[in-house]
């Protein structure tokens, strides 16, 4: 397109002296050339020449793109609400309950070391066992051994036993001191960790001076305070002892609950495998609490919304494309004289086709932009009404205008071909 070309001379000219003095430009013919800015401004002027018509022409595309954006936007928003409900905490929490009535006879149903078997399962991120009982649910706890006269006697708190991995399993952390460790357990130490609210009730805020709490008249050294508990929030008001110590002195020997945190999406599988790992052969007597499969739930919602409206949106787009094609064709026929003039001014067939193609693409793009904006507004309104957080994918917001432009481009193909095929003589006669 851009190269200058030496035009071949007619055979008759060979061997004949050429008259001198010709300007160097003569005899050389350049190819038609057009600045893209001119192509754009000519096309834009063409679109703006009949603003009402152009606006009406975009309607089909606007409708189609709006429908698609609403469909995809609302369904992903709704889907996100389900994921939101099964948020990171819920969707990854599995709890195994051990029934206190033990039909299997002697020996605990779930051993403290069962935790290690669960830890080895794929998808498990943290796990801890807890022992609690009716009898230890309301134990009197004092911060000092002798009640001063007139002083309110001790607080009533739950006493539980837990494995050393408990802080991670309840997604909490030590606000001060440390948690129970294997040494405490092995030595049957009389140590205790307080939940942060329990500590506040007992007036203990620091473990530097090794404060003690008294349970049933026996002293336990407080070695740490557990705070920020997200699971098993009742632990905030509990006194936590090493399992061995608790078994010796409180009768808290058997595991009653196992708390498991899994990787996102692994909850279902872990929920199936954990009972087997904990109590091989007796897994049926364990109760497993696991979240419903969020993927399934989301699929269900999207399936409801998408099917019909997606088809509706696509049909509207096709109708929009036909509309643009129709109007562009009418425009081409109305502007035959203009096409002839442009050819007379040196426009090539390709440049004429290019202009009409850019015009129809612009109309499609316009429809896409308006449709995307309308669709986003509707998604936001629907979300507001349903009290959802709207989820607006950037790719959707940017892709919608592109889709509109594509519709316009396809719709313009045939009309611009017609325009470019016109013979300039015929076009000028009109």
């Amino acid at each position, binding site marked *: 397109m851009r190269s200058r070309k030496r035009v071949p001379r*007619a055979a*008759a000219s060979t061997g004949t002296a050429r008259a001198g003095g010709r300007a160097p430009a003569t005899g050389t013919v350049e*190819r038609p050339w057009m600045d893209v800015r001119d192509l754009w401004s000519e096309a834009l002027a063409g679109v703006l020449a009949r603003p009402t018509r152009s606006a009406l022409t975009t309607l089909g595309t606007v409708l189609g793109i709006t429908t698609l954006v609403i469909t995809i936007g609302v369904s992903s928003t709704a889907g996100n609400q389900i994921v939101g409900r099964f948020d990171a905490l819920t969707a990854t929490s599995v709890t195994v309950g051990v029934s206190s009535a033990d039909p299997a006879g002697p020996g605990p149903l779930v051993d403290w070391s069962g935790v290690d078997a669960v830890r080895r399962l794929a998808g498990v991120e943290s796990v801890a066992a807890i022992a609690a009982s009716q009898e230890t649910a309301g134990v009197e706890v004092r911060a000092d051994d002798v009640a001063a006269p007139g002083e309110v006697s001790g607080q009533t708190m739950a006493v539980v036993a837990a494995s050393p991995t408990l802080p991670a399993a309840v997604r909490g952390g030590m606000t001060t001191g440390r948690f129970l460790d294997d040494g405490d357990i092995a030595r049957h130490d009389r140590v205790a960790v307080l939940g942060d609210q329990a500590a506040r009730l007992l007036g203990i805020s620091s473990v530097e001076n090794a404060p003690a709490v008294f349970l049933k008249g026996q002293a336990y050294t407080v070695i740490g305070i557990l705070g920020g508990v997200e699971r098993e929030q009742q632990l905030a008001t509990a006194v936590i002892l090493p399992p061995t110590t608790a078994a010796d002195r409180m009768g808290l020997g058997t595991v009653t609950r196992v708390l498991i945190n899994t990787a996102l999406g692994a909850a279902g599988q872990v929920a199936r495998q954990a009972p087997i790992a904990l109590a091989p052969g007796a897994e049926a007597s364990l109760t497993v609490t696991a979240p419903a499969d969020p993927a399934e739930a989301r699929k269900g919602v999207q399936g409801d919304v998408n099917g019909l409206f997606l088809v509706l949106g696509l049909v509207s787009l096709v109708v929009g494309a036909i509309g643009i094609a129709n109007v562009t064709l009418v425009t081409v026929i109305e502007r035959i004289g203009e096409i002839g003039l442009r050819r007379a001014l*040196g426009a090539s067939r390709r440049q004429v086709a290019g202009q009409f193609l850019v015009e129809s693409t612009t109309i499609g793009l316009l429809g896409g932009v308006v449709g995307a904006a309308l669709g986003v507004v509707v998604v936001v309104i629907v979300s507001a009404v349903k009290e959802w957080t709207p989820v607006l994918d950037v790719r959707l917001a940017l892709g919608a205008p592109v889709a509109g432009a594509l519709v316009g481009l396809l719709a313009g193909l045939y009309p611009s071909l017609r325009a470019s095929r016109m013979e300039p003589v015929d076009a*000028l006669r009109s």
Partner: protein
Amino acid sequence: MSGPPFSVVPDADTVIQLIAVDRTFDSEPPVHALREVNLTVRRGEHLSIVGPSGSGKSTLLNTLGLLDRPTSGTYWLDGVETNALGDLERTSLRGSRIGFVFQSFHLLPYRTVEENVMLAETYRRPRPGRGRAGRRARAEQALRRVGLAHRAGFRPDRLSGGERQRVAIARALMSEPALLLCDEPTGNLDSENTESVLDLFGRLGEQGMTLVVITHEEAVSGRAHRRVRISDGRLTEEHR
């Protein structure tokens, strides 16, 4: 008479050279619209072509304007042998060497007068010193040449017929053509507007513009230096 039929490469002063040009339309029955036409137009000449309706005037002008190809014969335009050219080169040559003035003006109704004139430079690579930035100024200058600088921002539909035709002429001048081809330029104008356009042609002729004007009006052809008559597809020189 025009140049001899057997002459070859025309000299630099020859803008148009037709040698034995025939044009037959393959209609039913076939129409022999141009027969053995020989014509030479030199730079700066003001030529008028007259003839009755259906005699082949427009066919001749379309051939000269590279809008139509002769069935046989040779056409040299401004030193280029056009028969051998492809569609693209003919288009480009048409855009760069020929300014058209049509009976029906062919102005774009939705663009201003100035934008209509600027259109002449849209489809070609900018000449040295004639960049895109200076296009508006050149359009203004072309409008000044036809005495319409004060109408630059108007839409064509608010102009008189004569003014419209002068805008079309400004557009043709904008591309600095080697040749101005006019097909019945005053066909849609009343006598007053015709006068203004003819005066303009007169001035352009004096400035050295090569003009070929098709007309069947005496008043129009009277202004030309030279007149050829076409009847039934045959061209004859008229001597005055």
